[in-house]
């Protein structure tokens, strides 16, 4: 039984994407990892190839596809091990804010660029002192005439260096209620007062240009507010389900890939004169990894279908986010152990995978936040 069934067009899309990635991405990943950046031209090629923002309607240049396209992109991107080309973040997390809450003018102005790769987007929520605690946010946005003046700083922003358009969360210091003070704003790169800080050195995601962003009397037109004033928190909440599901779409295929490599490695590596795979302990470990991956895959696919059907599955996606991201970490840990000393060399693909997957249980709301949310929605 295939829980997710793909149309002929979707299968064709996957094939084209895979060809594209094999040609334009995979050969360069190592280089980008060293350079800590993916060239903007690659985003443009990918956009022009039709692989960015497939959910955006044709009116704005997209193909108006359902969430299955997101699954395809996430799965195919996983196989490239390129974390820098954060197409899922752009297409399935950031741009949907604009798509759902933007005015027709805002959409006309930005969406076609988001789709064709000219505009790389980022979302700025996290601050040095407000990680998982969105209510503790300090960046302010104050109305002055027709303008909004933004002050503050944001950190851990994916696409922080490359981004052309930023969706930033900031609060109106004049409003007491923390939840009603937050709004989202669109800030273009190059706006005076908006500065990109240093690119952050990280355990993994080396080709990803994660950065700090600073706002010092950064003035944007009032019409760059997204949605109603004070509805930022509501908008964030509304999009979290898809954001978490997107994390799951990153975690499960990564785990599958790690197991695939590990099985292969254990087949060829020899210890004490026999292939590693002949060891019962190694076999059992692989079986346990395969099983967990399969469970994660099945749950992921079911949630994808529930999401497409429009169900509210906040509890389930929170659960899936924490479980699959922990699972991929367990799998990667175990995989490294199985391959032994080879697992200490960068040459071993599992090493990069391990460095890359570690952050999954932290970003998009730590797993502790996920459990807290699930508990809350379950009435505890």
């Amino acid at each position, binding site marked *: 039984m295939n829980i997710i069934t793909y149309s002929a067009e979707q299968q064709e899309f996957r094939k084209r994407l895979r060809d594209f990635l094999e040609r334009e991405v995979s050969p360069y990943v190592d280089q980008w990892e060293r350079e800590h950046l993916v060239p903007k031209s690659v985003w443009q090629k990918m956009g022009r190839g039709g692989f960015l923002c497939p959910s955006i309607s044709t009116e704005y240049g997209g193909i108006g596809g359902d969430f299955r396209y997101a699954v395809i992109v996430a799965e195919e991107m996983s196989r490239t091990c390129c974390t820098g080309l954060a197409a899922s973040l752009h297409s399935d997390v950031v741009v949907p804010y604009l798509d759902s809450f933007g005015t027709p003018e805002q959409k006309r102005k930005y969406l076609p660029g988001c789709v064709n790769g000219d505009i790389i987007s980022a979302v700025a929520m996290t601050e040095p002192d407000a990680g998982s605690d969105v209510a503790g946010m300090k960046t302010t946005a104050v109305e002055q005439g027709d303008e909004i003046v933004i002050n503050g700083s944001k950190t851990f922003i994916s696409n922080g260096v490359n981004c052309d358009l930023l969706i930033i969360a900031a609060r109106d210091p004049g409003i007491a209620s923390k939840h009603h003070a937050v709004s989202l704003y669109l800030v273009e790169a190059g706006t005076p007062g908006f500065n990109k800080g240093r690119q952050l050195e990280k355990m993994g995601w080396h080709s990803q240009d994660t950065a700090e962003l600073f706002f010092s009397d950064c003035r944007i037109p009032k019409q760059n507010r997204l949605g109603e004033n004070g509805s930022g928190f509501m908008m964030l909440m509304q999009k979290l389900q898809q954001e978490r599901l997107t994390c799951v779409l990153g975690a499960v295929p990564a785990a599958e890939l790690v197991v695939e490599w590990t099985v292969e490695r254990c087949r060829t590596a020899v210890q004490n004169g026999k292939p590693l795979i002949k*060891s*019962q*302990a190694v076999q*059992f470990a692989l079986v346990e990894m395969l099983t967990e991956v399969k469970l994660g895959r099945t749950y992921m696919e079911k949630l994808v279908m529930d999401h497409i059907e429009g169900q509210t599955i906040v509890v389930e996606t929170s659960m899936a986010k924490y479980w699959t991201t922990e699972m991929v970490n367990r799998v990667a840990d175990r995989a490294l152990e199985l391959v032994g000393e080879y697992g200490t060399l960068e040459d071993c693909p599992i090493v990069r995978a391990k460095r890359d997957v570690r952050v999954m249980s932290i970003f998009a709301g730590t797993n502790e936040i996920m459990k807290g949310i699930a508990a809350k929605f379950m009435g505890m």
Partner: protein
Amino acid sequence: MELTRSQKEIQKAAQEFAKGEFDKEVTVELEQSRSYPAELLQKAAELGFVGLQFAEEYGGGGLGLVDACLVAEALCRKDSTMGSAVVLAAFGAECLHRFGDKKMKEQYLEQVTAGKMLAGIALGESDRGDDFTVLDTTATRSDNEWIINGKKRYVTNGGAAGFYLVLCRTEAKHAENSGVALILVEPDRPGITVADLGDKLALNSVALADITFADVRVPLTNLVGKEGQGLAQARAFLDEVKILAAARAVGIAAGAFDRALAYVKQREQFERKLAQFQITRHKIADMATKIELARLITYRAAADFDKGKADPTLSAMAKMTAARMAVEVADEAIQLFGGYGYMTEQEVERYYRDAKTIELCLGTRESQKDRIADLVIGKLK
């Protein structure tokens, strides 16, 4: 950490006693009929295995908690249930020994160490073993008497003990913890109702009951130590017996391990001994490692206690670690035995249940972590 010669001798004596006296069929019978092994306790007491850490003048061994732990471990290793029953005979006497006056000790401790009386202590009033935030039992002073009212839950040896140390409020609930005291209550005082808690997951031979006190009158001299010290005494008692519980857990795990080890060396499947399968070998290696880790922290906690450096953090860590370890090791022992592991005859299923009971009593994992975190983090500014 090296055991002294005398400690090694005591350990050996306890092992020999257990080997000679414990009989799994008798255990199963006692468990089914829910009868306490009184004769066994008597014999253990005669050999000095009850109250090793108590002063000699009260019939104790004049030794330390390390010695008591070695005995608890040895007894539980040979039979998790009977070992536990013998160790729990004195459950509460530890508190009397530390905080009671000479007269009380002469009257009760001597009988406990002689194996003629079971001790009793009634602290908690909820499902949670070490939670005293709910403390509604009161002791009101009236002329020469305390009048006690309230309901205590999960009293070990409840209904069978020769005395109960009851945690009571002697003042209204104004200041935090100040007006709390331990009062000794004789079981034959009018107004005491014992409600047995029925069949249990394990340890059916040891009574467990809720006890209600309705206008129970005892002399003022039954106060243990000073008024206002009750909570501190209860905590100190728990810190001590948690180490003993950890020692029982280590013994239970070691006993389950012994049996599993013997079995895998003998059982053949697929034309090989189970002990020849790598997966079995690794399980055995994991089990042995876990036991040793828990044993080390337990001995360390007991040794610090004996040096007068009792560390409540270490007590909680030892109890939590050893109990969890024992559940996991006994569980794996069942798995190694396969279908036989599930059968009463092979004992390991009983070891598993006994281990789980240790984890559930004296505060669960969560309670221990709360306590450890309190002590490690301290007061926040």
